């Protein structure tokens, strides 16, 4: 187990982390390219930039839009996101690993905050799964990965909590640490290829919605010609 742990903390971590960072950069660039191509082709080149920006912000801080419909679910979703982002990035133990490797680090969360946020994230994720199952509309819309993702994201949180805050024996610590590292690496690899890519694509989604549905200038005529109704009003 020691060697497996060393391997997953060393080469496997570098592999998966590189896949995540470059993979996200890749989908972002490909998305931008396709937006440019669609914009270049479009007959109507007006894009309501003001609306794009306000709607993006409204979805990013869903006070107005989402809270109207399902306030409890939205609240848990926001709490979940806060913990999900803050804890892994600003945790003292994680920053210390960067510091050992790179020689510099970033400010860290106080011990009590890390403790509280971890517990909060775990409960929020559980609440999200229950909310998804109980609400008929959302369970109708959900795919398998929508149920799986909160569970997969929970594994490193639970195992990390056990390692950091519970006085377990040395051998149990190794086991939980291995699970913690491996599950986190699984998440790294999956992020760029699943819906979690919204962590970088989210700012573009409103632009895509506005640009991608524009058609090339002569589309109307072509459609009519194909339907043998040349000259018909569209």
């Amino acid at each position, binding site marked *: *187990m*020691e060697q497996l742990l060393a391997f997953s903390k*060393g*080469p*496997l971590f*570098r*592999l*998966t982390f*590189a*896949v995540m960072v*470059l*993979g996200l950069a*890749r989908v972002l*660039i*490909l998305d931008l*390219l*396709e937006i440019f*191509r669609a914009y270049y082709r479009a007959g109507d080149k007006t894009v309501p930039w003001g609306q794009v920006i306000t709607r993006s912000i409204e979805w990013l801080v869903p006070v107005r839009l989402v809270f109207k419909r399902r306030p409890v679910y939205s609240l848990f979703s926001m709490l979940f996101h806060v913990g999900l982002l803050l804890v892994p990035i600003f945790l*003292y*133990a994680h920053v*210390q690993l960067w510091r050992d*490797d790179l020689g510099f680090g970033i400010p860290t969360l106080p*011990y009590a905050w890390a403790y509280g946020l971890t517990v909060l994230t775990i409960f929020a994720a559980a609440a999200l799964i229950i909310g998804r199952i109980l609400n008929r509309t959302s369970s109708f819309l959900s795919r398998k990965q929508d149920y799986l993702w909160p569970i997969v994201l929970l594994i490193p949180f639970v195992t990390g909590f056990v390692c*950091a805050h519970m*006085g*377990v*024996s*040395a*051998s149990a*610590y*190794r086991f939980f640490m291995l699970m913690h590292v491996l599950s986190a690496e699984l998440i790294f690899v999956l992020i*760029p290829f699943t819906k979690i890519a919204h962590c970088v694509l989210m700012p573009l989604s409103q632009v895509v919605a506005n640009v991608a549905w524009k058609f090339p200038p002569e589309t109307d005529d072509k459609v009519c010609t194909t339907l043998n109704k040349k000259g018909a009003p569209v």
Partner: protein
Amino acid sequence: MVQMNRVQAVKTVLWSILGLTAAVGLTRFIFGLGATTNLSDATPWGLWIGFDVLSGVALAAGGFVITALFYVMRREEFHDFVKPAVLTAFLGYIAVVVGLLFDLGLPWNIWHMIIFWNPHSPLFEVGWCVMLYTTVLLLEFSPVPLEEFSRYAKIRTFLMKFRFPLILLGIMLSTLHQSSLGSLFLIMPFKLHPLWYSNILPVQFFVSAVALGFMMVIFESLVSHWLYIKDSETERIAKLGFIAAWVLFVYFLLRIGDIAFSGELGMIFTGTWEANLFIVEMLISVILPFIIFVVPRLRYNRKLQWVGSIMVVFGMVFNRINVGGLTMIRATGDIYLPSWMEIIVSMGVVSGAVLVFMFAIEKFHIWEERPRHPESNPYAPAAFDRSSGAWLGSPLLAASTRYSLAFVFAFAVGFALIPDNKIHSEGMDDIPVTRARGADTLFVDGNLNNFGVAFDHKKHEELTREGQACATCHHMNIPLDKNSGCWECHKKMFTVTDVFNHDWHASAGGAAIACDECHTPGQQRRAESAKNCEDCHRDLRVENTPIEVKAYLAPSYTDALHDICVACHLKKAVELADKPDLGLCPTCHGGETPENRRELYKYGQAARSLKPVVLPQVKKPE
């Protein structure tokens, strides 16, 4: 997945190699040559010089030989070869410059040669020629891409006016530096094997570059026509091959004639590995291709054209690698094998050049007829991802999706393969220390290189019987021990050892102590919130020792011993009037140490009496 054609398959492979190269390149520029190459002081020039620079320049010779043939000698039938050859040469020189940037220790100083002139150095001439010729090639080639943009028509016509002078300048510059790459090796007659060393190395380099230039044009034409599924120009290739064959013959005469002239012809058949290497090199680079391209029946055979051109290309690269280092092994005694990272970078530089070449072939007017392939074909069916059924976009987007994916995964694999110990080292290898041998007299030679100090333990024991004598050197004990030696804590020769082994204490196979047994529960687990070593191990510190241990980071073996020995010796040299030499290095270091040997060579005999000890600069713990 859509069906991949030949071009896409090749591009996917090339992008993967580029991904690996990006990961290795990042390591090279952040952690330096030591972390990525197997180069040493005895072999400072490795694969990156032998292949990327020496061979790269020679492989790019196609540009000047074809322009000479077409513009100067007016051989109109070779018109179709000119644009690809100039492009190959241009990309080849860019590849040389990129390869050189990888190999230079301080690549950001490459501009120094423009301002700080050293006219005595052949490398100065090579540097300037490469710089000027790359510029000339850029000007020679730029009319081709400019053709695509009508608004740059004026610049294009302006450049076309100067085409002929540019081409002459290009031929002249090539002649100069192709030969002076050979001149570089004139200064090492005792390092280079006699079968490769010659007074006319510059001439041999030039003639072989001409032959290789022709063959590279043939090879490039065959490969690109195979890739884009076009009929190749067998007839014209045979004609070009015929010319190249006779240049090869001249090269053969120059090589063999020079060896015969110096009376060492017999050396070829002595059966040593160098002699066999010479025979193999001559066979694949000269003799067999000469036969293929001289005999008319063989010359027009398409398969043999492949074989012949590949032989020359590989044979001449082999020759440059032989001259660049392989045949120096006997003289230097340093066996150098390039690390996988050096090989990847060399492949990556070539891959990048090939990708740009393919891009240019597809986008610009380099061939009479532009190649057709699915990416540019407007009627190609849209691509769908087989696993998810998602639309991958237009064929162009689908292709870039695939290439970028190959790049990302290759980068990740390369990043994972980089050895941990190389990037975490402080530029100095961890050399483990072995215990001193002997009893009354100890031979202190931690790294077992046979340069050590004979330490009279018994005499020191007697001389300093009173007071804190023993406790000065034996100031700490490892747990359960009463009399630990220096090597038990100061475990590394030149680097610091962390005496506290956290992983062993926390491991189920070691002490199996749970976190909370040392760290205070409910607090951030760090060194400050943990117990001290002495809370459990009560026998670590020796009583009445004058040495104060603040942290459990033991200085390097050399530092630890020097600190204690030298401090006392200097004090005693002042106290004892009859022992003025006690504080000098030769008192202990009788012989030469590897560290001071280099200094001795530098200052000659005068330094020999001083016997200086050069200590490596290492970071001391706080």
